[in-house]
Every structure is written in C-alpha cells, then in structure tokens.
C-alpha cells in the first residue's frame, strides 16, 4: 500500500553566489541543514536518515559526505550518497523519497550542494563529454591553445556549451523558433531570479535586448543564455504522512505525488531502434513524465499542472522542456513565450525561481527545482516570485549526464488517495 510523503521544509545556506571563500564545504552544508530544520518543529536528532549528493570532481573531494557527518547532523545515522550528473539533486530527492516510502524511515533530509569556487567547472564538465580528448591533450595535440594556434578547449567540445548548442540548434529547426526566442527565455529567467532572494544572477526587468547584446559562444547559444557556476547548498526535509502534523511548522505542505526517472543514450547521431539519437528529441523525458503523471493521478497535465520548474542549464531548454513534459504541444513554445504564457503572471509560469539559467550549483540544481516547486505549493516563495494563484499541482524536472538522464517529480497540495 502506498505511503504518502510530504515536503515540510526547504532550506538554503544563503544566496547562491560565485564564490564563498569564507566558508568550507562542510560549513556550507551545515547552514543549509540547520536552515531547513529551523522551519519545522523537528529537533535535529529526530531526522532518521540523510541522502547527500554532489558532483565531486568539481571540488576534488571524493566522498564529501564522509567529511560532513557532524555538520549535516548525521552522526551514526544512515547516510547514502547519490550522484548522477546534472540531475543529481533530484536523484537525491528520489532516493530520500524512497527512504520514506519504503516504510523504513519517517523523516529524511535530502541535501544537494556544489561549491564551484573550489575547482574549475569547465574541466569537470569537459570530463563528461570527452575524457579521451583530455588524454590526447595530455600527450599530444595542443587543444588548450597554450602553445599558440591550438583549437582551444572549445574546439574539443567546449565543455557542455558546445554539446548543448547541438541540442539548441536542432530544437530551433524543429520548432520553427529563432535565437530571439532563446533571448526571451533567458530574459524571463533573469527577471524572475531578481524576485528570488536566493538566486545567483539577478537582473531586474531584464529584457531580451539585453541578452541579445551578449556574444555568441556556439550558435545559437549566447553567453547570456548560459548558466553561471554557483556555490550553495539546498536541504529538503521529507516526512511520512503520519508524522506531518507532528513535525511540520506549517499547515501547507507539498505532497510528493509521483516520481520517475530514466536514461537514454549518451551518444549523438547513432541509430537506435530506428531513430537517430538527437538530443532535442528527448523521448525519454516524455516516457518519464507520463510515468510520473500516472503515479500522481494526473490525466491531463496541460490543464492540471499550474507551475513548472524545469532544469534549464541553457535558456533554450526553457522552451524545450515544457513540450517534452507534455505541458504544451510539441513546437508550441516559441509562440507561447511571445505571448507571455510562461511569465510569472502567465498561464503556466515556468521557473518562477529563475531556473538553472540563473543559478547553477550542479549538485543542488535539480533539488532546487523540487524545492522551488514545493515552495510554490506551500505559498512560501520569497522576494516576489510566488505565483499569485492557487497551486494544486506542480512539476519539477531534472536533466543530466550527456543529455540523457531525466528525473521528474510531481508535487501537489493534497496527497494521492490510497
């Protein structure tokens, strides 16, 4: 029999920023966990288990969770570590959800974090796409450009931006949109972020023209379309239905109605099952979304979902993901964003938090999507980014790996009936 699970609090260590030279990794985690606990009636030792996740090649610490036993208040408690690339945060959340849904634990804290100022993000990201390139660069052709005349790392795939530009170009071709729509999406994200005290890149009243002034990195992606590398941690506390009254400090909690995840192929341009793998197709996202909606009892996502927090590592994905999540028709986003459909006061607000385009602490980002969707349901989004209508259902989405991992979480203001 299904066990219902609710999110009762969301904590951040503070605003996501580029550098936090003043605190260590473990101190950052502690701030987030204590912040989450402070918004509940929980005493710290009442948390049963912890799930932690980050992409550790960005800090150079192999098992950061081991170092942080005391700081995340987990001494002699179960701690599990999850890491799945960009979607780490939501995989962590799913793991924490299963910890409670299994019946084994009642109160679990999910923590996603990243401290990018301690490493070089592009090397970490490049390591996904083309580690072979790095071996080559180590022993052979000068791809870094250091000896002059080299291709530069951009030529070798350019970390994730190069790869994402394939996806963006294909998406524009299929949907009939143009680079101006990506500018609109990025501007919307930056403007939303300005109403979110925890977001990194805040540009009040950002306009598409402002974005269009930024240089192109790899067509059609501009500098203004990409996400920053942020430092920060997010902690979310999940509680089983029977214990919500005891531990929640608010009447409105966000119920986890359906979670699902999946993976497709990493390589681009191969033929699989008669289909050429194109990162803009994202069949897996549709499959996963359908599964999550089914578990959540949602028959018509277009009508039943009031807000979406999607993982937009690059601004074109603000347009792409709502289509793949079956919230709008395929190819509809360019027209819809022109009409303001995705605005904070639009029909379907997308990323009221500013999304990943405005804040990207990789290990935390997908968890922040869930956290922000939960805040919308709980009516607790601060700084002006609370959507001004009753949110009955929200969908949070995470993406990672090499355009292949997808995680989807559907939250609601009431639990699924058993």
């Amino acid at each position: 029999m299904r066990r219902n699970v609710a999110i009762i609090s969301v904590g951040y260590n503070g605003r996501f920023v580029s550098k936090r030279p003043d605190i260590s990794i473990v101190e950052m985690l502690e701030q987030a966990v204590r912040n989450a606990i402070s918004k509940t009636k929980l005493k710290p030792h009442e948390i049963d288990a912890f799930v932690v996740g980050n992409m550790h090649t960005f800090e150079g610490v192999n098992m950061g969770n081991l170092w942080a036993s005391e700081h995340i208040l987990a001494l002699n408690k179960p701690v599990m570590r999850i890491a799945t690339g960009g979607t780490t945060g939501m995989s962590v959340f799913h793991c924490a959800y299963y910890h409670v849904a299994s019946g084994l634990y009642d109160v679990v804290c999910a923590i996603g974090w990243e401290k990018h100022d301690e490493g070089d993000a592009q090397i970490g990201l490049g390591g996904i796409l083309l580690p072979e390139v790095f071996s080559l660069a180590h022993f052979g052709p000068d791809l870094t450009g250091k000896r002059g005349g080299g291709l530069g790392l951009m030529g070798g795939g350019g970390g994730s931006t190069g790869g994402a530009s394939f996806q963006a170009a294909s998406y524009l071709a299929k949907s009939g949109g143009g680079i101006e729509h990506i500018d609109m999406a990025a501007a919307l994200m930056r403007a939303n972020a300005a109403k979110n005290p925890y977001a990194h890149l805040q540009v009040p009243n950002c306009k598409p023209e402002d974005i269009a002034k930024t240089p192109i990195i790899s067509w059609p992606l501009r500098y203004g379309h990409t996400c920053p590398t942020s430092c920060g941690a997010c902690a979310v506390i999940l509680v089983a239905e029977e214990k919500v009254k005891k531990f929640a400090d608010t009447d409105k909690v966000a119920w986890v109605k359906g979670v699902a995840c999946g993976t497709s192929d990493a390589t681009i341009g191969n033929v699989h099952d008669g289909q050429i793998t194109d990162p803009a197709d994202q069949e897996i996202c549709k499959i996963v979304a359908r599964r999550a909606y089914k578990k959540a009892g949602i028959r018509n996502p277009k009508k039943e979902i009031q807000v979406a927090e999607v993982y937009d590592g690059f601004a074109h994905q603000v347009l792409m993901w709502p289509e793949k999540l079956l919230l709008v028709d395929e190819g509809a986003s360019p027209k819809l964003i022109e009409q303001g459909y995705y605005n904070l006061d639009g029909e379907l607000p997308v990323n009221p938090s500013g999304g990943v385009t405005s804040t990207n602490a990789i290990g935390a980002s997908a968890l922040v999507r869930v956290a922000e969707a939960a805040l919308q349901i709980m009516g607790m989004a601060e700084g002006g980014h609370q959507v001004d209508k009753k949110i009955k259902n929200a969908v949070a989405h995470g993406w990672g790996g090499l355009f292949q991992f997808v995680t989807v979480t559907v939250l609601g203001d009431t639990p699924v009936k058993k």
Partner: protein
Amino acid sequence: MKRRVAIVGYKLMKNTRASEWTRERIYYELSKSLLEELEIKREDIDTFIFASNDFADGRTISEVYLVQRMGAYMRDESKVEQEALNACLYAWLRIQSGEYDTAMVGMASLASSQFKPLLVQNHELDPVYERPRGLINFYSGAGFQARAYMERFKNFTESHIARYAEKGYRNALKNQYSLQIIPPSIEKIENSDPIYLPIRELEVAPYADGGGVVILASAEKAKKLTKKPVWIEGVGSAQDTYWIGERDLVKLDGLREAARRAYRMAGIKNPKKEISFAEVQTFFASEEPVIAEALGLFEEGSGAEVIEKGLSEIDGKIPVNPSGGSFGGNPMGGTSLIGLINAVKQLREEADDFQVEKAKRALVHSQDGVCAQHNTVMILSAGGKK
C-alpha cells in the same frame, strides 16, 4: 518491513590484475548472461542501480556510457556513489516502496589496472586538514586500529595479524573467482615490508579488477524467477564521525549501530548463535577481528583465540570471509557486492570448494572511509529449502 525481497540471481567476473574487458564490456557481458540465465528480458527489470565512483572511473558522471550496457536504455536508473552494498540497499528501498518489483544492481571496478587506489583514497580525505597534513589515511588508520587492539588485548600480537592475512589468502585460493594468489607463509607475511606498523605490506588486501551484477525481486516475482531465492531479512546503515581522534577504533560505534539495526529488523537476538557465516569487507587483515567482534560474532578481545583455534575458518564455529574476502582481490568500490554474491553462493550451496556446511543465515558488510567510518550491514537467509 512491508515486502519480502530476495536476490534471485548473480553473475560474477573473475578478479584479475588487468581486465581484458573494459568496464562497458563487463556490464554488458554480466547483465546479458544473467538475464539469459533467468530467461527474462531487460524490459522485465524495473530499475537499474549502479555503484560506481567518478574518481575511480576517471571521468565525471561515470555511468554516462555504462547505462546502456547494463540494459538501462530508456529505462529507470540511478547511481549510488558508495560501496556497492549501498546500491543494493537502495534497490531494496525502491522495491519496498511498492513502486518496483525487480531491480538490477551492478558494479565494475578496475582498481588494479586503471587507476591508482592510493590516489583515490587520498581524495576521500578532506582537502583542508587531513589531506595536507598527510598523517591520517586508510593505512595509518589501520595502523592505529591494530595498535589500539593490541594495547587493549595484550595476547594479540603482530603475528596474529599475519595469521588473519594467511587465512584470507588460503581461503581465496579455494575460490575460483579470486586472484588465485599462492598464499604466502605466515613468516613471510610477518616479515614483509612495514607500512604503518604494525601493518605490513602483505597484510593489505591486493587490489583487483572485478565486476558483478545481481538481480533483486519482490517475493511474488522471486518465486517465478528462481527455485533458490536468497531473502534479505534485515538491513542497517550508519555513518560514524569522520574524525579519527573522536572514534574508539576498537569499539566501532558506527558499525555496531548499523549491525544493531540490521539484527533488529531480521529478528536476530543472539548473532553468535543465529548467524551461520559472515562476509565482511576489510582492506587490512587486522580489521577482521575488530569488525567481527563489533558485529557481535565473537567475544570482545578474542582475536587471538579465534585465529589460533580456527573458529572463523570455513569449518569453524562462525566462518568469516570463507571466500577469502578482499584477499582474493579488492576491486575498490565494488568489493562488497562480491561479498554479497559469495554469501548468496553459500546460501544456495553453490560455493564449491569454500562451501560452508549448513549455511542458513549470512551477514554481509561493507565499509567506506578510513577505519570503517560508514558501514552497511545486510542479513540474508537461504530460501528454497524444506
């Protein structure tokens, strides 16, 4: 516990110093052959859980190219980045929730041929205190632990540590899937190069390349898939403090907590009587008596007596690591899955030359971090018997 979950099948790769197969090939071959053996397709597996470590695999998000090889293309998957037994635990949690009925868990580690374990372990230390000071690491931690044990129980000497190592090598030789190292004599081990005294070179488990895959299933599915299910009766997990200066390295509070939780779930009140054998994860021979006692399998301080009287031998009172444990090869990051598979073999009476008689209930253990900081314990029981 809502649902009974069983391990219904396994496939193991022979430990080797230098694998001819890439990690991708290991996952492919093991997963494919296991699915064929059980006569199911990859579509019958509801979720795939990987156990791999980016540092060890040398690439970010190391499962990016592995998911398809294990059969997870367009299917549900996730990755646990700790010792592989935790991936089994996650799969168990998923099945417990009722949303899944079957799960595949896999690991492939090239600890011997592809990466330098010492570097990976060095990066498990915090970067701002222990790593720069260079005093505490896995090896010095083991040295401290062994010394503390010897000080507390004066009849335990350096020679006994060598004897535990020799037992490991000797058992491993009986296990066809181990590295097949000819066991050095106790004298040779005792006189091997010192590393962090009292730990010596031959008392360190040898690194290996290895791979393994298991399938877990809920009771209803398990009965259809195999006549010999191995039931997971109890699980427990706990993470102790990172700081070596705040731990009693002999008592191992964190490990006791993990074991306590697993025993309670499995309804075990007296492990000494109710556990048939144990597969515990050790990096060093000196850890075996400490861990076995913290698990409650032997009296505290009985390390010398146990090895002298052969109480933990394959035909002893409670065999510990009848497969040889890590002394048959330590594919770092996945060793505990091999321990799990070896325990499953025992309970299904498929362990050939290292078979424990009348094996009914097993304890499987995994550790992460210096001196077993994070521990996971599982209790398994044999099914399919009258």
